[in-house]
C-alpha cells in the first residue's frame, strides 16, 4: 500500500497507549529500570522513556521469546498425548518505540523463521504484533545502520513510523494495513499531516564503510588469520547473539515430571563452544575464532546468500553489550582493509 501521512500529537500518545491496552493489546515500550533501558509492558505512555538510542536488548523477544513452550506432552501408562502450541493463546501486541533498525531486524528474523521451514509460532506472533517505530534523531558511536543500508528514518519493517517534528508533534507514516487498522480504530487521535521535510528531522548517521567491499568477498578468506586476530579477546559468551535483533538460533529441551512434559525452546548463541559440539565429542568449531567467523559469516555471507537480505541492521547492540569491546563496526572496517590488501 502507499504510505499515508498523518499527524500524531505527543499528547495523543497517552490516549493511544491507554486505548491499545483497553483494546486487549499488550503494549511494549522502552522502559528505564536499574539504569538500563529495555522493552517492557506499559499501561501508560509516561512509563516509556524518551531517553534512549536503542534499548540494551532488542525487541525480538515479543515474537521470539527467550524461552517458549512449543509442545506439550502427557504420559499415561500406555499412551503419550502430544499437544501443539495453541496459537490462539498468543496475545495481540504492539511494539512502541522500536527504532528503524529494530523494525528492519524483524525482516531478517522472518527470513530465518519463514525459510525452508515455516515456524507457525513465530509467524503468528509477528502477525499479531503491530510495530510502531520512532525515527532516530540521535545516534552514538556504536550505531552503523547507514553502512548496512538501514536508514534512521526508514520505514522497512514498521507498521507505523513516527518522526518527531518538534516537542509536541510527530509525523506518523502509516506503512502497512496493520498500521492503518490502528489509525482507523483510533482516528480521533490522528490529524492531517503537515508538510515537513522528514530527512531534516532524522539523525544524519555517517556511512562508515562500503558494504560492497564485503558482500560476496569474505568467503574466500575463510581460512584467513584475521578471524583469530580479531577474536583473541572474545571470551565466548552468548551476549552478542542474545541482544541482537536478528539472531534466531535456539536450543530445544524437553522437561518432564514423568506425567506431563513440555518441549521448550530458548535462545542460543554460536559464540558458545557447546553450540556445535557433536555427541561423538568432535566439535567442528572447536576454537573461538571459528565461532567468531561463524558470527560474521552468518550475518554477512550465509543470510544474504540464502535469503537475499543482509543479516545485520547496524544497531550496534552487540558492541555495546560486549564486555571485552568486540566492536563489530571496527572489525568490519578492519576486515575490509584485509580484503582489499
Amino acid at each position, binding site marked *: 500500500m502507499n504510505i499515508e501521512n498523518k499527524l500524531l500529537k505527543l499528547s495523543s500518545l497517552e490516549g493511544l497507549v491507554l486505548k491499545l491496552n483497553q483494546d486487549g493489546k499488550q503494549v511494549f515500550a522502552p522502559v528505564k529500570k*536499574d*539504569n*538500563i533501558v*529495555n522493552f517492557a509492558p506499559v499501561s501508560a505512555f509516561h512509563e516509556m522513556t524518551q531517553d534512549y538510542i536503542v534499548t*540494551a*536488548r532488542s525487541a525480538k523477544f515479543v515474537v521470539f521469546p*527467550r*524461552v517458549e513452550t512449543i509442545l506439550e506432552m502427557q504420559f499415561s501408562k500406555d499412551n503419550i498425548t502430544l499437544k501443539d502450541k495453541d496459537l490462539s493463546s498468543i496475545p495481540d501486541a504492539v511494539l512502541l518505540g522500536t527504532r528503524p533498525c529494530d523494525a528492519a531486524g524483524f525482516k531478517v528474523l522472518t527470513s530465518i523463521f519463514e525459510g525452508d521451514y515455516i515456524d507457525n509460532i513465530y509467524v503468528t506472533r509477528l502477525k499479531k504484533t503491530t510495530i510502531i517505530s520512532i525515527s532516530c534523531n540521535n545516534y552514538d*558511536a*556504536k550505531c552503523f545502520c547507514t553502512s548496512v543500508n538501514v536508514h534512521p528514518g526508514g520505514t522497512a519493517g514498521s507498521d507505523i513510523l513516527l518522526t518527531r517534528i518538534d516537542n509536541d508533534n510527530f509525523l506518523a507514516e502509516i506503512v502497512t494495513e496493520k498500521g492503518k487498522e490502528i489509525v482507523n480504530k483510533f482516528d480521533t487521535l490522528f490529524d492531517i499531516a503537515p508538510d515537513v521535510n522528514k530527512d531534516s528531522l532524522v539523525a544524519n548517521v555517517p556511512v562508515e564503510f562500503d558494504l560492497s567491499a564485503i558482500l560476496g568477498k569474505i568467503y574466500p578468506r575463510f581460512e584467513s588469520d584475521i578471524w*583469530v586476530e580479531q*577474536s*583473541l*579477546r572474545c*571470551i*565466548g*559468551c*552468548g*551476549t552478542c*547473539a*542474545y*541482544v541482537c535483533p536478528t539472531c534466531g538460533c535456539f*536450543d530445544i*529441551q524437553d*522437561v518432564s515430571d514423568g506425567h506431563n512434559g513440555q518441549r*521448550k525452546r*530458548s*535462545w542460543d*548463541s554460536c559464540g*558458545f563452544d*557447546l553450540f556445535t559440539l557433536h555427541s561423538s565429542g568432535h566439535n567442528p568449531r572447536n*576454537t*573461538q*575464532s571459528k565461532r567468531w567467523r561463524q558470527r560474521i559469516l552468518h550475518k554477512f555471507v550465509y543470510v544474504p546468500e540464502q535469503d537475499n537480505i543482509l543479516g545485520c541492521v547496524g544497531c550496534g547492540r552487540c*558492541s555495546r*553489550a560486549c*564486555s*571485552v*569491546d568486540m*566492536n563489530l563496526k*571496527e572489525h568490519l572496517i578492519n576486515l575490509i582493509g584485509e580484503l582489499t590488501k
Partner: protein
Amino acid sequence: MDSIRKRARELLEKNTVKVVIGYGVGSDNTVRAIFVRRPEGVEELIFDETCVQNLAVYLLKNEIKQIGKLCIIANISALRTILQLASEHQIHEEELLCLSVTPNGELLEFTGFKDIENYISSCNRDLPDKESEMIKKLEKMSVDERWQFWMNHLSRCIKCYACRSACPMCYCTRCQVEYNQPQWITVEATLMGNFEWQITRTMHLAGRCVNCGECARACPEDIPINLLNYKTVLTVKEKYNISAGTNANIDSVMSSFESDDKENFIR
C-alpha cells in the same frame, strides 16, 4: 607505562615470551585487552587505574596458550587469580611471566608464585566499598526483602553466561549447566532456571572467587551478580580464615576434608 613497554619489548625481542597480554586503548575511550606479539606492538600497551579487566581469564584460553610462553600485565585481581589457578593446578610457574606496576609507578616483575604471594600479602584485598555496603544492606534485609531483591534482578537474567565466560575461575570445559543426561539445571532463562544457575555458580565459586568483579562487569543486564560471590568470600574468610588467591597452595574449601572438621556428615 614506559617501564612496562620497555620490559615487554625486551621480552619479545629476546623471544623470552611469544605474546604479552596487556591493556590497550579500546573503542570510545575504553580500555580493552590486547595481545602483543611483535616488539613494535608494545607502544600500544597502557596501564593505569582504568585497566580493570581481569586478564587472567585469557591464561587458559586455548588459542592464546598455543601462541607459546606468555607474559601477562597483571593487576591485583589477575595476580590473585594466578595464585588461585596455581592452587587448582591449572597453571605452572614456568608457563608464564608476570609484570605489574605498583600504585606509585614502580615496575614489578615476578620471578615465581612465592614472589606474587609476598606482594599480594601487602596489598589491600578488601571488597570494594560499594559492594561491602550493599552486602551489609542485604544482610539487614528480611528474608522476604532479600528474596524480592534477587527476584527483581534475576528475572532479567537472559542466561547469556557472560558472567561465567568473564570469570577466570569459571574455567570448566564442561559447565554443570551444560549437562543434560541428567539435566541438573533448567536451561531456560526463567526465574527458576536463573536462580538454579546463579546458586550453582555461587556455590562452585565459594572459596575460589578472588572478588575481581568481572561477572558483574560483563553482565549485559547490569545484575550485581558479584554480590552473591562476595558474600561467600566473607563467609569463607570468617569460617575458615581462607582468602582465595593469596597463596599458590590453598586447599579447596568445598572439596577438602579434615578429620577435625566440625561437620561430620562425611565421616
